[in-house]
């Protein structure tokens, strides 16, 4: 790299060298820089590894594990053994199989929530920030309204209302998709606010003015010119939304407004075993550890992404 005498690469034709300054390869390089910075963040890489293992465990584990979650009739409340590494629960079900299934549902919920809340938040936030005027007023007041209405009430309506229950095919309880949709529909407020604030300042920038002067349509300006400049914030927020969703779903399960049988989740497993902490602690602690692993690994990934996108946060002593 520091070779001054002989160029490592023979001098190419000047035309291609000039072109490379302007073609898309420079954009790719920026992503490479970000990827390299991310890979240097040790905690984030560990986070990725743990998260991938958890995803494999949740979605492929049942194919490899000897027992199914429907196998009951083992001795109840068995301590962890070689045959049942996580023990058995109060119904005599194998806890490994239960944990695989719980992790799967928790991850499904979290991914749907992250996708939905990011999508709604980005679109509405960008619209409010770019359009201004009555669009901004309407969206901002709507956000205020949702902030004021306690979200538990909305959850209660979804869980207890017989119409919703029958429409989603679950008998009186709530299936995982209802919980995920609910969390996604109330979870977009903060990302919308952040994006709105960023768009407010971006729309005054010269490149947006130039695009407008060239006659670009509003969607084109928003999606091609403005939102790419917020992609770092969007990705980081979407990542953190996964962690938040796992925890929120657990809290909902605890107060009885979350996922119900026949569906399950790690939060529901903990709630069902909340009185076992003294006598059969593993029934409580195993799903607890899995929740912590999911949200910890995702939080580390989010932190690594933030550092990779925004090197200003690294303090360089002058």
């Amino acid at each position, binding site marked *: 790299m520091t070779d001054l005498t002989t160029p490592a690469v023979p001098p190419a034709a000047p035309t291609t060298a000039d072109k490379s300054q302007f073609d898309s390869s420079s954009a790719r390089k920026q992503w490479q820089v970000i990827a390299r910075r991310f890979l240097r963040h040790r905690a984030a890489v560990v986070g990725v590894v743990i998260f991938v293992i958890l995803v494999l465990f949740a979605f492929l584990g049942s194919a490899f594990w000897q027992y199914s979650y429907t196998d009951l009739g083992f001795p109840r409340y068995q301590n962890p053994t070689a045959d049942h590494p996580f023990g058995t629960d109060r119904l005599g079900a194998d806890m490994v199989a239960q944990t695989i299934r719980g992790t799967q549902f928790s991850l499904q919920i979290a991914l749907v929530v992250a996708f939905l809340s990011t999508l709604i938040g980005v679109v509405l936030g960008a619209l409010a920030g770019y359009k201004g005027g009555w669009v901004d007023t309407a969206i901002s007041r709507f956000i205020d*309204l949702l902030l004021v209405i*306690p979200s*538990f009430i909305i959850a209660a309506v979804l869980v207890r209302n*017989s119409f919703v229950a029958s429409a989603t095919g679950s008998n009186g309880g709530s299936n995982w998709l209802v919980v995920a949709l609910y969390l996604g529909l109330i979870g977009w407020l903060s990302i919308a606010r952040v994006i709105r604030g960023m768009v407010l300042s971006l729309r005054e920038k010269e490149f947006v003015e130039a695009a407008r002067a060239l006659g670009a349509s509003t969607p084109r300006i928003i999606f091609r010119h403005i939102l790419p400049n917020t992609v770092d914030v969007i990705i980081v927020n979407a990542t953190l939304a996964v962690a938040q969703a796992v*925890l929120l779903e657990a809290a909902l399960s605890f107060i*009885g407004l979350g996922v119900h049988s026949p569906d399950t989740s790690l939060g529901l497993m903990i709630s069902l075993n909340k009185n076992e902490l003294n006598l059969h602690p593993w029934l409580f602690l195993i799903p607890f550890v899995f929740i912590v692993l999911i949200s910890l690994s995702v*939080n580390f990934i989010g932190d690594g992404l933030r550092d990779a996108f925004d090197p200003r946060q690294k303090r360089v002593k002058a």
Partner: protein
Amino acid sequence: MLRYIIRRLMISIPLLILASFLCFGLTTAMGDPLGEWKLQKPRTPAEITAAYERTGYNDPFLERYANWAGDFVTGDWGESVVPGNAGRSVKEDIGKAFVVTFRLVIVAEIIALLLGMIVGVIGAVRQYSLFDYTATGISFAMFSMPLFCVALILKTGGISLNNWLESIGADRWIVTAGPPGDGFKGGFGEQFFQYTGAYILPTISLVVIQFALYSRFQRASMLDTLNADYVRTAQAKGISEARSIFRHAFRNALIPIVTVSSLNFGATIGGAVITETVFGWSGMGKFLVDAITKLEPFQVLGFMMVTAVFIIVFNLIADILYAFMDPRIRLD
């Protein structure tokens, strides 16, 4: 400034009306508060009619809302309607619950904010030091845990501590059923013992989550200002490091955390649901969960109005503080 405050409060009146209307619809959609009562045993049609008369469910929806809103404005927040527990004044019950929650939350918020600011600032000034790594690790672990698990583990620990205290002949210390309803009794020492016994675990479980948030936030905003050009300029002009950290970086790094904490405080008044449920405090969160479980429409509405006013007021406080600390911002 006064005109700004008045205008902001005026804007929130339509918001409150809209929110209460929506909430009224939601409580109706939640289900029939008398549904379970009707199933318990056969009721005569006369009984059922009388019970519905009391809830007002015989009237059309809009009329019911108008009745409720009219009563609410004149200070009558309605009563509980589910038979067996009917006739409790919503206003009185919320008043009691509010006092309980406020006492708990204010202490926890202040501790979490102070701790978070101190740890965040040190973490930013000594970035990548052992202290920073430890604090980062702890706060990451803290907000990766479901709050109710933390509370449950603390509660179990508290009970074991009590058993151990008893085994060495001391009094049981930790209370896991909320503060005594009739206040603390005895001399100062005894009162202090009871107070800490009742408050320590719920306070810790609230602090854990909030501290993680505040310390991360303070660290990030402090890093932002420490890297800002004006701080580098100040250092280039040769002022001391302490002065550049505290007069230039810290004061500007306070702006976002003050905003976040006041927004957060407004929301926590109604949001300590988990902590209150685990530790048996009859505060606002437990009030809401009970009201939702029993499908009490007026209790849910009353709760929403109180917490809504708090969220609106603390939003306003956040904006005022923001303008106060950053003179470039003008409120008008």
